[in-house]
């Protein structure tokens, strides 16, 4: 270990012994948690905000989870698409009840 590295070691020791290390660790944890929270909020709400703007501008927003090109059930048209899912409103549900 040369004198430059010894100097570094001495300054490190001073930093930890003065308590600066622990205080900064707490502050950093807080800062990073805030950034993470903001990131999570953006992740959750940004797609909805974009959808809302698309809807306002007159376009059709893509529903989350629907694949592009996949036909959409439109109750007003009376047509039922040949979808694979078994959700509420599925024609088979009615038959099952009967």
């Amino acid at each position, binding site marked *: 270990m040369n004198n*430059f*590295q010894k*100097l570094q070691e*001495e300054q490190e*020791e001073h*930093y930890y012994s003065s308590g600066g290390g622990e205080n*900064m660790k707490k502050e*950093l*944890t807080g800062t990073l948690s805030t*950034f993470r929270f903001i990131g999570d909020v953006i992740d959750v709400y940004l797609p909805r905000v974009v959808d809302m703007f698309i809807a306002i501008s007159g376009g059709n927003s893509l529903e989350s989870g629907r694949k592009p090109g996949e036909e959409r059930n439109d109750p007003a048209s009376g047509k039922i698409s040949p979808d694979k899912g078994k959700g509420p409103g599925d024609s088979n549900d009615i038959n099952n009840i009967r």
Partner: protein
Amino acid sequence: MNVIHSYLETQASQCFTILYERYAGKIYSKCISMLRDEALAQDATQEIFTKIFLNLAKFSGKSRFSTWIYSITYNYCIDYIRRTKKKKDIFTDDIEKAPDVIDDVPDEELLELEVEQLKKVLSELPPDDTAILLMKYQDGMSIKEISETLEKTESAVKMRIKRAKEKAKMLKSELFSAMP
């Protein structure tokens, strides 16, 4: 590298603690050598760490992780000095054109200094000279790594090291030659 990947995947606080404990003191040491003020060095360390964690995904693994961290540290300090101390000439390009006229100072001239003497010499040197000496002798960075950090040519870096060593030698004789 495993710790970095774990942190990126899980954001686990243990990984944060490992990285923090390994590098916080070293970053602080560089900041205090460059900025020469304890409070400023603490603030700088915190900002540098935030920067490092927010950019962790950008670390490609081409260089050593320590080199990547120290590059961020030195560049932060250099920018800070440029911005606040109106020292715009720090690491300017004049060295690129400078002729190679300085005799090389042997490393022993610097390495034989006592720690306290070294601290004094570094505190009297311009910050850019301090930075380049720390990169070479404290961090063991190669000329190539230093040139990538400072975005200078390798010959410019060699010239800057020579000049910094020369200045350090002069300071050493000014400060300590009269001592018994």
